[in-house]
């Protein structure tokens, strides 16, 4: 499928999904829940650009996400700009942090890179905790605007924005996957030194990867203050985001754009269900168990399972 066709189909299915949900669902709770699932599609798709395509495991998802949120807090308290602009700014901020992280860790690979991203997240959280303007460790209350700029309630507006962002993220991931850029990323994942010896500009590609990945996470975080209305460092920098952003692509499948989407919908929905039926404390336990299960039974995720079934069926 050509890229333009894919983008068109993705946009159409996004619009169709939006129209159907808006027409059928009135209960606001479902929008709150769907927002979180969509947010995870963006986070895990962003994570997968660096983690799945390029082969660098990032445990700092929470930081990129929270910095996007705090960028919105700063904008909220200083200038009044529309939320889509805040998302762009959040994306730029986290993208720059991604670029910096990539630059500072350019010689680190494997587990050392993962540890460095974890450390980066802690440094960022400490900075926010000590920054009084955005509430410090007390957190900050954000009052939602009384009405949404487009039809519907404010949560429906947030849901719509996140749906648009999810479609864009998936489109970007799919475009990269089929491009020369994606081929370069895959070369880094397979054998970085060999890629370098063959003239693949590994440093530049890695920086593109960390920047893009960070930017998508930041954009996902930007509407968070308006979603939660009370933002504090502990919950916004939560390790749960990092764990989920790793688990969802692993469960779904890391080599294709659809993997993180499948993983996010599955794990995200299970967590939302568990939150209302059992308890919200159980969420990470479920994610952890699924993660262990998939790593052992299906290391290539659901997408990998389906592909191998199809191959076996064809061989028969």
């Amino acid at each position, binding site marked *: 499928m050509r890229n333009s066709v894919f983008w068109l189909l993705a946009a159409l299915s996004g619009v169709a999904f939006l129209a159907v949900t808006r027409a059928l669902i009135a209960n606001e709770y479902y929008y709150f829940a769907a927002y979180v699932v969509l947010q995870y599609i963006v986070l895990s798709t962003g994570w997968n650009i660096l983690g799945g395509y390029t082969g660098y495991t990032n445990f700092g998802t929470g930081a990129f996400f929270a910095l996007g949120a705090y960028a919105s807090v700063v904008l909220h308290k200083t200038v009044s700009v529309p939320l889509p602009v805040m998302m762009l700014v959040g994306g730029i901020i986290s993208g720059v942090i991604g670029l910096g992280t990539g630059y500072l860790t350019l010689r680190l690979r494997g587990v050392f890179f993962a540890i460095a991203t974890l450390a980066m997240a802690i440094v960022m959280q400490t900075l926010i905790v000590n920054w009084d303007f955005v509430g410090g460790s007390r957190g900050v209350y954000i009052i939602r605007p009384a009405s949404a700029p487009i039809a519907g309630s404010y949560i429906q507006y947030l849901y719509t924005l996140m749906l648009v962002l999810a479609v864009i993220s998936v489109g970007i991931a799919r475009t990269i996957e089929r491009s020369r850029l994606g081929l370069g990323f895959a070369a880094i*994942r397979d054998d970085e030194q060999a890629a370098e010896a063959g003239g*693949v500009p590994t440093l530049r590609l890695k920086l593109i990867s960390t920047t893009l990945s960070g930017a998508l996470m930041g954009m996902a975080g930007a509407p968070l203050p308006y979603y939660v209305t009370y933002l504090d460092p502990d919950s916004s920098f939560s390790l749960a985001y990092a764990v989920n952003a790793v688990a969802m692509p692993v469960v779904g499948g890391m080599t294709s754009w659809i993997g993180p989407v499948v993983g996010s919908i599955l794990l995200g929905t299970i967590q939302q269900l568990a939150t209302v039926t059992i308890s919200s404390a159980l969420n990470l336990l479920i994610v952890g168990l699924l993660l262990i299960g998939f790593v052992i039974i299906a290391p290539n995720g659901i997408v990998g399972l389906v592909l191998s079934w199809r191959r076996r069926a064809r061989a028969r």
Partner: protein
Amino acid sequence: MANSLALTGVNAGYGRVRVLENVSVSVAHAETVALLGTNGNGKSTLMKCIMGMLRPASGSIVAEIDGARHDLVGRTTEEIVDLGIALVPEGRRLFPKLTVEENLLLGAFRRSARALITRNLDSAYATFPVLRERRRQLAGSMSGGEQQMLALARALMSEPRILLIDEPSVGLAPILVSRTIDKIKELKERFELTVLMAEQNFNQAVRIADRGYVIVHGHIAFEGHNTDELNNNELVRKFYLGL
């Protein structure tokens, strides 16, 4: 147009460990020069210096490509590949989880190589018919000999004038070593390459080399101006071949 390579007084190492000491090696136009030496004597380090993957502490590395002189020290690997120098790394270093065709495309990642990518891909398949058959197969699933062919084909995708080959015999059965060496000779003639080949398999390397150097503990122990000199040198027989 002439293509040649000259290293003069190169010193290089990793951290405080000196690997190359005052190494001078030259490859004249359309020559095949063998760099002979057993493991751990600095052959790969020398290759890395030429490719800009390791910066020498001192010394000069100058390449002449199509008649133009270029100082290689301080250039990035990408620039050096762009100039027309390609490396077949030791142990092949393919991208095992990518297909054969993707591996070839990665050999032509540079902008300058991309323009002619279809032509070069066809040429690679014409030179190595087995690779066309296995186009969609994962590189890691091929046999050692086929992988070595792919490594050679990948390096040629950037249309190099100077080809560096690091230990083509590593991990191959004797019959495949001899076939690979023959193939290198054929490629050299077909594409009018200037070749520097590091190898520890003395007899096989000397078969196609015009002349050679013996590298021992990071310095050039002997320079043979032709294969007879290499074959009959006492030093080579004693230190290198152990005869």
